[in-house]
């Protein structure tokens, strides 16, 4: 049995992502964080470097790959210390898979190559102002209509907190086509600039500043029926299975947040001194760091393990929820301790731990909250 999750191919992709991050992201982070978004060119550059198409069919411009390719890329992008960049640049990872897995061939051929090349941006829109955790309670309506002899869905409603919502071109949107509950939900691919669709301004939030977050409005918006993804009223299943890799990737983001914060502390405690000793020579500080490192190690190993089982085709929806909660518990702990170890500097915008502290806080909320993960786990325990 191999003791390693990453083989040579994974390492090669990691190397590409590392160089990309160092050259194209890290130098500009502060600027993007303050301006509240990443430039479109970054998507093009990432597409060119092959970082967007990992795991997609070659015929659409993708490169075959598994979840560990995605993890390697995610980790390297996160090392720039900005959760927003990763969330924004990778919004396709939640928006595009439903198209890839369940879209019609025409839809796939039209949409996927552009997104993988980075010339178009994709995102996922499930959450509504009135329904977040309770996905089955969503209310955005899509009714079948015929206009000029062609079939359309007429969409009315709104979506909330959509990552890349401002800059995206393609929106994978959950709508209600049938009755109440999870059995009446479908996914539609909605394109920017169609009549009746508008996007609110970038929402001001605690962290993830380099990614835009928007509210979407649909007002008698006509979407061609061929933009239906998968079968009508089967959307809930697609959404739930799409959540699995998303949650793994959020766990990876949490773990890498922990790692970057821990490393920053390991450096800081060597230089700063109080009471005639460097911080590392105070036992409390050493033990804090020991606990931080232990928690991170355990969380990361668990995430990898569950990712491997997911890759092997096992149903690990319970364990994925566990991995996300363990990882965010860990990153909550570590980012908190990191700002503590940095003292007053931890409260200052100029320190990386200040950003990590803000960015981290979304991870136990987005992609299914901590409490919802516990609901999933409890259900899987037969409760």
């Amino acid at each position, binding site marked *: 049995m191999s003791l390693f999750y990453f083989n040579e191919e994974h390492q090669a992709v990691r190397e590409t992502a590392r160089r990309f991050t160092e050259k194209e992201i890290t130098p500009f982070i502060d600027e993007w964080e303050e301006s509240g978004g990443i430039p479109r060119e970054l998507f093009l550059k990432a597409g060119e470097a092959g970082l967007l198409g990992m795991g997609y069919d070659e015929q659409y411009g993708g490169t075959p790959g598994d979840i560990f390719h995605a993890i390697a890329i995610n980790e390297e992008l996160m090392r720039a210390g900005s959760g927003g960049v990763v969330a924004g640049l990778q919004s396709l990872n939640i928006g595009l898979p439903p198209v890839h897995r369940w879209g019609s061939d025409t839809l796939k051929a039209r949409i996927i190559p552009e997104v993988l090349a980075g010339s178009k941006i994709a995102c996922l829109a499930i959450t509504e102002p009135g329904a977040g*955790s309770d996905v089955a309670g969503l209310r955005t309506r899509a009714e079948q209509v015929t206009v000029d002899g062609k079939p359309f869905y007429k969409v009315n409603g709104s979506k909330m907190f959509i990552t890349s919502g401002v800059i995206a071109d393609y929106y994978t949107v959950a709508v209600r086509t049938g009755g109440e509950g999870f059995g009446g939900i479908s996914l539609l691919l909605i394109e920017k600039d169609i009549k009746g669709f508008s996007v609110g301004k970038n929402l001001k939030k*605690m962290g993830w500043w380099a990614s835009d977050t928007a509210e979407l409005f649909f007002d008698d918006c006509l979407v061609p029926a061929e933009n239906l993804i998968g079968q009508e009223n089967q959307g809930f299943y697609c959404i739930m299975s799409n959540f699995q890799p998303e949650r793994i990737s959020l766990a990876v983001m949490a773990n890498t947040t922990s790692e970057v914060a821990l490393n920053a502390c390991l450096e800081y405690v060597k230089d700063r001194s*109080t009471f005639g000793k460097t911080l590392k020579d105070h036992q*409390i500080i050493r033990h804090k760091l020991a606990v931080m490192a232990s928690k991170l190690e355990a969380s990361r190993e668990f995430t990898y393990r569950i990712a491997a089982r997911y890759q092997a085709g096992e149903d690990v929806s319970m364990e994925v929820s566990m991995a996300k909660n363990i990882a965010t518990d860990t990153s909550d702990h570590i980012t908190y301790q990191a*700002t503590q170890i940095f003292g007053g500097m931890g*409260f200052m915008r100029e320190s990386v731990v200040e950003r990590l502290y803000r960015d981290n806080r979304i991870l136990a909320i987005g992609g299914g909250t901590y409490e919802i993960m516990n609901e999933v786990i409890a259900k899987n325990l037969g409760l």
Partner: protein
Amino acid sequence: MKFTEEHNEIRRTMAQVIEKEINPYVEQWEEEGIFPAHDLFKKLGNLGLLGVAKPVSYGGLGLDYSYEALVAEELGAIHCGSIPMAIGVQTNMATPALARYGSDELRKEFLTPAIAGDQVASIAVSEPGAGSDVASIKTEARKDGDDYVINGSKMWITNSTQADFLCVLANTSDDARHINKSLIIVPTNTPGVEVSPRLNKLGMRSSDTAQIFFDDVRVPQRFRIGAEGQGFTMQMQQFQEERLFCVASILKTLDLCVSETADYCYERKAFGKPLLDNQYLHYRLAELQTETEIVRAALYQAVEQYVEGEDVTKLASMLKLKTGRLAREVTDGCLQFWGGMGYMWDNKVSRFYRDSRLMSIGGGADEVMLGIICKYLGLLPGQKRG
């Protein structure tokens, strides 16, 4: 602690100012990254709220510290952490030593206008190289004729871009570190005082924080508070009030987080029922409120002892430690229950989450509190037991 009608009266006065003069402007001040200190302090000064426990002869109300603590507690109803902190610097951090040990002349010159709200004060202790370890500060005040000539730098000083004077801790001799320091009042318009632009922070956005540089700053020696070499001791004493203030002024904030979160979760529905009807949510909120009440009870006890003239350093330090951690727990726990809304910048709980992070760091970090508590419990290396 027993509250009299006078206590309630002053509490109401503070509550009214907050409702009329402060909360309506908080959003704007937070957005602008500053608040009008002179304007607001004058309003508070006119009502006597900047000198509750200060001597009547300098314009104070001459009441005991229980009134001060109650006013501080009321400040927690402000919709951000910055304004209570700025007011606390003026009343409980930069001026207690001045009020107690300053010469009559010095108090007339600086304490009276601070209490009246005509002048804004800062406390300048921390330095780029010395925060927790106060004794290791480098700023030096050298005697020259009747003056001190001050050189050095102070870091992260609250109110400082608007301050009229600073209460500066500086080394005034080469003696041992605990007996070589003095507290000196330095007017900010003295030549050689330079204040950096405002620093960009995680929270406390409407409070101005800056670095201060002293380059051959000359002030008369009569600006020193009390005896030379007593500065460290006076500052440690002054910290007691600072810590009691920090604790008192966040309790209502924590109450507010719990109650507004409960209101929100009562209104918001998911899975066919109000969020609040989930057992985990209502139990968790109950737990957070319980802890807050226990801190409040301990605070009242500390205040009572302080009013009796006891040294409450140990209890004040314990309270500061516990409350800093609790503030994070309450704001974090409540934020979670707002879901995505909790992550929005202008959400009140989200703001308190960022603002209150300071409590475990500023005014003596948690680890410093633990060091003090150890000392009082006789737990440190070399301390004899029994």
